[in-house]
């Protein structure tokens, strides 16, 4: 089954085609098809997993490729490669996709273009699985763009709203900048190694066939693509805006799967990054800056989804930091656990938004604890997991990251990442308090109702995963599940690493958690805003700066308005005046006048033309003879 | 021997002698062909035909020829002089050239050419030029109409003629007429290729303007066609050319389809026997042509053209294709013969059924509709 893992991608692809073609005419607009496809994908994943594990470690990675085209000596193969990283990604994607599809049945009920929403959702799942399975960079790039397309379509699902359209465009264009880098990087790597196949490229790099500045440059271009997709600074601007899409989409695409494609890409090519000089340092730096920056911005956000969006950006930064430290297992482990609790948080936010009648500003919410108990409990679990409470999933993965950074990057990075951890705990607590504790600050929030089973079901399921998913880090747990050991012994770069709990580090981690939680708890005690308001009044400029996301959007706006448009104005003036008026129109006018003068040569009588032709031929022959001797 | 060698060789005297023999033979044959035709047609029509001149009217042809030679040679005032006067010669030259290439006995003709059959096609094509010149040069609208009809008819029917003969040449594997005749020692090609023979005969009737394809010379329509203005010796040149062409085609058909001097008794009885065999076979074909004239009514121009372009050409190309398949796969000649007989039977049967079918009354218009009869 593992060598036929492409079926995983084929199932949602077929569902997409069926829904796109027939969805509108099917009963219930075909949502059962989508859920069926997602469920079978979830089930098939276990078949793949069992087959993969059954082969034993010596048979990994499982390869299956066909020759796609041959141009001269160059053979282009397309196929799939299933290794440990792929398995982790498959687990994340199929699970979250399943949950989100189920959740969407309730959440999207009665929304416009219900069938189209599910169709594109299936397209996304198919492309994401293809991206994960691809054994070569070209196929990966195709899937990469398809994923971007689905994201674009889903963000702009409510295209009647101008903001949604703008957000979709922003996401598409911003990621495109990175994608161009990725394409250049792929081409450069192909030029250097002569293949698109990822494993071949890694082998070539490890064998030292390529290296030096050229490799560094191409790796940096590839990392540009990863940064764009994973919303790393300075490409992060699209992700918060992408919250214009339906909330389950945010859970699936913009929290758990698509945005981690960058992380996945770097993890997949980590040997190449290692060989490419200081590439990993760049990865660490970008991840660190992003983690800190978005942690700070998350403090001041008032939209419940934007807080989560910045939190996602920040956590992606964590993952890059871990990868930058060269520890693939830490990064992938955080990706794995984060997918569950961040999907949980987003779905919880969706539940809140639906229950509270589309109020999503924290200033309007509050006191939902009693009205939406299941959602609140699930959200609490997710928040604590994100903040890193022992022994929830987030604790273990964050612990791994801290461990990796301590081991490979030194004290400064460790201190900064600890700071980012405190921020995580802080804004998570703030969000939870403002949303669920205290008293409702809005009449609609006061009338909030718990949502139906199709939504609370996935919440509970994901909450359970958020509690227990972290334990796979233990070797015993992994072996019990059929893996060769814990997470570190399953996903590794050079040699498997058995997990030993480091009580000192766990203490530090817990201390960070406590500082963050109690800081927020003190500031927003009981859901009241007076201390926060006082803080804002004390430093209004700083607060404004944070609320405005450090003016990144304004900076981009300025760049586009003044620099790009100004330059394009000059270019357009040149085009109009020099190219068009002088060059194009000028020559046309000249030709027109010449034609007016010369048209009298045209008699319409064929013999005249024939005479001219014959005379011309005679003259040409004579000239040729004279010239040629 | 190639045509070039024949043309440049030193055996001029030999050639001239042979030409004289053939021309004399031709003159005699033509004179008695006219007599024969009148007799045969008369018998078909329960008449006697010429009886007065000589025993059983045998000298009638000679008398006619003498009369024609003595008649005044009239040229219309608005005729184009040179065109008018040269047209009869130009109709005659190709026929003569054809006769020069036909084998009358084993290896005996004026010249034996490697590309004999091709030469016959090529030269026969020129035949039409004289007809057209006569039509154009007479300054007469009937002559012009006859010329146009003849031209359209002849270039149309040349295609099935050539294609059907090529189908036979494919089987023979040569264009040498002598070799083709020699090949028919055991069986004449008509037994193997009856369909080709039927097509050949039909096309020849048309090429010679014989009934039922005598549209260019139809007296009742265009008072004799392209030679309406001719008289005397020039008219007799046309007649001579026409009957000579009839004879030449018959010998050609006899050689290609009936084995010429070869079948049924072979060539071991001497050259005179071969000569008699060839002549008898050609006369048999001529008799067949007379018979057709006596039996079938004349076609309309559009019927003539659509029969050629919509039936004959298709069938002849199908024949070419079938022969090619048999040759390519090396199938037995017996099967080929059976297929061909079936094709010939189907072709003739289709023509017969079409001829006897009732007119489609529902498609008639006007008075014919009420009367329930088809227009004439």
């Amino acid at each position: 089954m593992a060598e036929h893992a492409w079926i995983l991608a084929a199932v949602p692809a077929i569902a997409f085609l069926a829904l796109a073609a027939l969805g509108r005419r099917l009963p219930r607009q075909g949502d059962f098809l989508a859920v069926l496809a997602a469920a079978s994908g979830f089930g098939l994943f276990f078949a793949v997993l069992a087959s993969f594990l059954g082969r034993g470690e010596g048979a990994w990675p499982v390869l299956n490729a066909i020759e796609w085209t041959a141009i001269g000596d160059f053979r282009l193969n397309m196929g799939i490669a299933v290794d440990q990283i792929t398995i982790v990604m498959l687990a994340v994607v199929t699970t979250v996709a399943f949950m989100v599809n189920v959740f969407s049945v309730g959440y999207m009920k009665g929304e416009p273009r219900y069938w189209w929403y599910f169709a594109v959702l299936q397209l996304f799942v198919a492309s994401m699985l293809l991206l994960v399975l691809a054994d070569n960079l070209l196929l990966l790039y195709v899937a990469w763009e398809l994923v971007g397309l689905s994201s674009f379509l889903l963000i702009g699902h409510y295209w009647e709203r101008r903001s949604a359209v703008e957000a979709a465009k922003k996401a598409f264009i911003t990621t495109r900048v990175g994608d161009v880098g990725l394409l250049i990087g792929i081409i450069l790597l192909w030029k250097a190694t002569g293949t698109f196949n990822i494993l071949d490229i890694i082998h070539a790099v490890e064998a030292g066939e390529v290296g030096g500045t050229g490799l560094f440059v191409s790796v940096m271009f590839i990392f540009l693509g990863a940064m764009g997709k994973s919303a790393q600074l300075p490409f992060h601007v699209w992700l918060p805006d992408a919250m214009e899409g339906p909330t389950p989409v945010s859970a699936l695409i913009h929290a758990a799967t698509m945005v981690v494609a960058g992380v996945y890409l770097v993890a997949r090519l980590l040997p190449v990054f290692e060989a490419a000089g200081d590439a990993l340092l760049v990865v660490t730096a970008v991840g660190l800056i992003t983690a800190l920056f978005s942690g700070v911005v998350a403090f001041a956000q008032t939209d419940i989804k934007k807080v989560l969006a910045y939190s996602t950006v920040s956590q992606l930064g964590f993952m890059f930091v871990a990868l930058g430290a060269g520890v693939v297992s830490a990064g992938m482990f955080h990706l794995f656990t984060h997918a569950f609790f961040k999907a949980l948080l987003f779905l919880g936010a969706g539940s809140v938004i639906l229950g509270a009648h589309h109020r999503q500003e924290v200033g309007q919410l509050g006191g939902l604890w009693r009205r939406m108990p299941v959602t609140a409990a699930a959200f609490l679990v997710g928040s604590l997991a994100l903040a890193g409470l022992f022994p929830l999933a987030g604790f273990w993965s964050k612990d791994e990251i801290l461990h990796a950074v301590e081991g490979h990057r030194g004290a400064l990075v460790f201190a900064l990442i600890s700071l980012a951890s405190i921020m995580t705990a802080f804004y998570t607590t703030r969000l939870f308090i403002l949303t669920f504790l205290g008293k409702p600050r809005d009449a609609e929030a006061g009338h909030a109702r718990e949502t139906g089973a199709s939504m609370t079901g996935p919440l509970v399921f994901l909450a359970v995963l958020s509690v227990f998913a972290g334990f796979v880090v233990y070797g015993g747990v992994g072996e019990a599940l059929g893996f060769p050991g814990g997470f570190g012994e399953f996903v590794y770069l050079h040699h498997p690493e058995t997990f030993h709990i480091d009580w000192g580090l766990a203490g530090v981690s817990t201390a960070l958690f406590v500082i963050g939680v109690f800081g927020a708890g003190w500031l927003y005690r009981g859901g009241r805003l007076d201390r926060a308001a006082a803080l804002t009044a004390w430093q209004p400029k700083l607060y404004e700066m944070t609320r405005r996301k450090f003016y990144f959007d304004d900076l981009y706006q300025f760049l586009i308005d003044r620099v790009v448009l100004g330059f394009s104005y000059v270019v357009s003036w040149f085009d109009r005046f020099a190219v068009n008026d002088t060059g194009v129109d000028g020559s046309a006018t000249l030709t027109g006048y010449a034609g007016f003068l010369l048209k009298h040569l045209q008699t319409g009588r064929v013999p005249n033309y024939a005479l001219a032709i014959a005379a011309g031929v005679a003259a040409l022959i004579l000239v040729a003879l004279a010239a040629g001797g | 021997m190639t045509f070039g060698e024949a043309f440049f060789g030193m055996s001029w005297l030999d050639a001239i002698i042979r030409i004289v023999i053939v021309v004399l033979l031709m003159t005699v044959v033509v004179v008695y062909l006219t007599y024969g035709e009148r007799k045969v047609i008369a018998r078909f029509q329960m008449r006697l035909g010429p009886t007065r001149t000589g025993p059983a009217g045998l000298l009638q042809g000679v008398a006619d020829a003498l009369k024609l030679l003595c008649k005044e040679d009239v040229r219309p005032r608005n005729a184009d002089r040179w065109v008018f006067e040269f047209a009869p010669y130009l109709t005659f030259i190709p026929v003569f050239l054809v006769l020069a290439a036909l084998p009358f006995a084993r290896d005996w003709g004026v010249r034996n050419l490697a590309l004999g059959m091709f030469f016959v096609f090529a030269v026969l094509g020129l035949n039409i030029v004289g007809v057209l010149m006569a039509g154009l040069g007479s300054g007469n609208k009937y002559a012009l109409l006859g010329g146009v009809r003849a031209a359209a008819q002849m270039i149309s029917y040349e295609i099935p003629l050539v294609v059907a003969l090529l189908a036979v040449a494919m089987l023979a594997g040569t264009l040498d007429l002598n070799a083709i005749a020699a090949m028919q020692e055991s069986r004449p090609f008509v037994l193997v290729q009856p369909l080709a023979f039927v097509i050949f005969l039909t096309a020849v009737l048309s090429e010679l303007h014989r009934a039922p394809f005598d549209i260019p010379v139809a007296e009742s329509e265009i008072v004799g066609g392209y030679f309406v203005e001719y008289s005397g010796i020039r008219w007799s040149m046309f007649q001579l050319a026409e009957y000579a062409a009839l004879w030449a085609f018959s010998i050609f058909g006899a050689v290609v389809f009936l084995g010429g001097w070869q079948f049924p008794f072979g060539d071991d009885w001497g050259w005179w026997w071969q000569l008699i065999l060839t002549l008898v076979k050609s006369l048999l074909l001529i008799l067949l042509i007379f018979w057709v004239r006596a039996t079938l009514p004349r076609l309309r121009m559009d019927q003539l053209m659509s029969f050629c372009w919509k039936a004959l050409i298709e069938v002849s190309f199908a024949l070419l294709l079938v022969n090619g398949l048999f040759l390519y796969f090396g199938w037995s000649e017996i099967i080929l013969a059976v297929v061909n007989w079936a094709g010939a039977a189907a072709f003739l049967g289709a023509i017969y059924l079409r001829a006897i079918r009732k007119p489609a009354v529902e498609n008639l218009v006007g008075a014919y509709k009420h009367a329930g009869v088809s227009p004439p």
Partner: protein
Amino acid sequence: MVPLENYLVLSAILFALGVYGVLSRRNAVLVLMSVELMLNAVSLNFVAFAAHLDPDRATGIVFAVFVIAVAAAEVGLALAIVIRLFRNRSSANVDEAATLRW
């Protein structure tokens, strides 16, 4: 023993006559005839070259066959055009068909 140059000169004369006919004749059919003369001159050249210089490959012969076939196609088409022209304008003169002008 006729040398190659004789054929070439004959062909050149035929070609020039054809050119003159094409350029000077008014009747479309006559123009066509002159074109035929030119084509004949060309294939005469081909055949002469083939027979004198390249008898093994017979390329010139093949070209002559092609020229003749193309000429046949051209005549058929051109005469159809002439007849159509005559039917439309009651004249086969090429210089009267001068509508295609500014």
